[in-house]
């Protein structure tokens, strides 16, 4: 029963948000409390590794939609709640219309629903819902640049979902079911490689558009950097992870290892290069999201259970620090009136220390300084025995990330300031705390989790080494910044890129 109430309550509350601004704020708080209470209940219920399952409408699992609170959901629900709380606190003092809160509730409801559903077509519907709601939220402030970014997002996401739908058709034609668990059995027994490759390629391409994978997600940099900052935090921290969740589910059905390896490596490196030479803070963060998604997908390509734990951990960690970075970057650019690194550094004195502190914690998290969130999650991934190719891309991505974030170094200066408090401090502390204390908190929430302590000194050395190399490279090449081609992010080129990517994935799956 609870697994139905949790997503649905957000949609119902969202409708009542139209009553007025005050009501909307109160309902946002009510929605969070309800979500938190139900999540705690579900997590206690499934503490022994069991799952809570409901098949809607009293149908048999093959026909009805199955909702299940499983390990994936248990990992992501706390992240959803933390980001939700941070965003509600962040926009508390802003003058947002009721529409904003309503859309926020719909977005979170859809995220909860996607984490619970075990049905392929239901996944399609929820992904489309996420597209529509995030499309409206990206263009919420109605600036032309935002409207253009969100329109590109809508068109490309819609193309992706068309491919996904055909993938569903192919799967249903050959197996007669859309339930993920029944599909796993059906696919392993009937192994005609032709249609399995076709269905796998179509479904992968469809999700890849949503998940932020090169060559499918060239809408991402514009949409994530143009959106209002609170929304960027949710998009980068949460919505993009939903694609990763669907990928995790698909990779249990189709032999995707090679595909994920190729797409992941391309995404990680491309994102890192573009992030390294971005001149605008929010744009750099958006490119960094791209490279981190590549990192996650590469981790998925390792395929062992330990690697999956690492991927889940890193997805949560990335959600925390990228959310924090986007929130703080939004306040900093709003205060300075420009998001460019040059202006931020020149007018550092105007930015409150709390905001810069939040940026600093987020940066330390993302460059994986021990023992913060990024390091803890990376440590699990690195100890899951990736091959030399994946290992090399991991290392390059880490160096690239440090390189890109080194551009913030001139901003990280602290002096005593006259009493000027940041109104967003509460939001920052909600996200900073789990970043700083990631290891004990994760151990408390998931008692089964074990990190192998013998490898730790080596991992610490590696992590600090990558940071040092990244900062050093940045110092050496500071004066020379090449102009990277921007035209691949145009609508026409992005559409072509999706088609090329689809053919590539099909070829890889046919092997």
């Amino acid at each position, binding site marked *: 029963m609870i697994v139905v109430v949790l997503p649905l309550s957000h949609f119902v509350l969202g409708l009542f948000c139209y009553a007025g601004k005050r009501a909307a704020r109160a309902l946002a708080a009510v929605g969070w409390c309800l979500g938190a209470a139900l999540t705690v209940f579900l997590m206690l219920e499934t503490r022994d590794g069991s799952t809570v399952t409901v098949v809607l409408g009293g149908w048999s699992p093959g026909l009805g939609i199955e909702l299940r609170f499983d390990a994936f959901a248990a990992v992501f629900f706390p992240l959803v709640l933390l980001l939700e709380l941070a965003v509600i606190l962040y926009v508390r003092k802003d003058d947002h219309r009721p529409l904003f809160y309503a859309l926020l509730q719909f977005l979170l409801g859809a995220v909860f629903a996607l984490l619970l559903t075990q049905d392929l077509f239901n996944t399609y519907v929820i992904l489309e819902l996420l597209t*529509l709601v995030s499309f409206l939220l990206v263009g919420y402030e109605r600036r032309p640049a935002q409207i253009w970014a*969100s329109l590109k997002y809508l068109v490309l996401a*819609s193309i992706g979902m068309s491919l996904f739908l055909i993938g569903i058709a192919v799967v249903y034609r050959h197996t007669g079911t859309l339930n993920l668990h029944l599909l796993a059995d059906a696919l392993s027994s009937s192994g005609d490689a032709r249609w399995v490759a076709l269905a796998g390629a179509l479904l992968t391409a469809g999700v890849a558009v949503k998940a932020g994978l090169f060559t499918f997600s060239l809408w991402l940099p514009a949409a994530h950097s143009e959106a209002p900052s609170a929304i960027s935090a949710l998009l980068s921290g949460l919505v993009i992870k939903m694609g990763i969740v669907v990928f995790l589910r698909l990779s249990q059905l189709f032999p995707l290892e090679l595909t994920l390896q190729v797409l992941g490596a391309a995404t990680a490196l491309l994102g890192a290069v573009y992030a390294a030479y971005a001149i605008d803070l929010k744009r750099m963060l958006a490119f960094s999201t791209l490279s981190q998604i590549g990192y996650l997908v590469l981790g998925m390509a390792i395929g062992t259970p330990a690697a999956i734990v690492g991927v889940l951990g890193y997805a949560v960690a990335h959600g925390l620090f990228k959310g924090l970075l986007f929130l703080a970057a939004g306040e900093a650019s709003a205060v300075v009136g420009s998001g460019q690194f040059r202006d931020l550094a020149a007018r550092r004195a105007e930015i409150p220390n709390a905001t810069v502190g939040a940026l600093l914690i987020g940066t330390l998290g993302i460059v994986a300084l021990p023992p913060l969130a990024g390091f803890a999650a990376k440590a699990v991934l690195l100890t899951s025995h990736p091959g030399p190719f994946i290992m090399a891309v991991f290392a390059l991505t880490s160096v690239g990330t440090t390189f890109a974030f080194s551009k913030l170094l001139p901003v990280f200066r602290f002096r005593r300031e006259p009493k000027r408090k940041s109104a967003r401090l509460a939001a920052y502390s909600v996200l900073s705390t789990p970043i700083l204390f990631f290891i004990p908190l994760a151990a408390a929430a998931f008692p089964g989790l074990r990190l192998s302590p013998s490898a730790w000194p080596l991992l610490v050395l590696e992590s600090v080494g990558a940071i040092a190399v990244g900062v050093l490279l940045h110092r050496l090449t500071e004066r020379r910044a090449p102009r990277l081609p921007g035209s691949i992010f145009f609508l026409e080129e992005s559409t072509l890129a999706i088609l090329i990517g689809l053919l590539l994935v099909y070829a890889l799956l046919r092997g």
Partner: protein
Amino acid sequence: MAFSAGIVLLGIGLVAIAIRRDLVIKLLALGLANAGSILCLVAIGDRPEARVPICAVCRDAVYADPLPQALVLSAIVINFAILALALVFVMRLVEHYHSTDSRRIEGLVQRDLREGGRS
């Protein structure tokens, strides 16, 4: 047969989105592509000599699989919503830039971002 027709429609739509620069034509092409994918979904419910799955007494007759048809309804509604919202946003862009040419709008957006910074 119908399945291949759906794929062809999808292909025409995607190519049109990639090569035509007019935003309204792009959205029409998107509608075509979506219609193609829906046609594919309907097509797989077909069986040889199947009838429409609406019946009072369903005995001894071959009926098309009703599940894809139920799925298609959701997909059609979603695609309608996407096209409607996209058209509203195109309208706002046209009001601001007086153009439906995607390259031109892209250039103007880039120029605005360079000049104005982010407010």
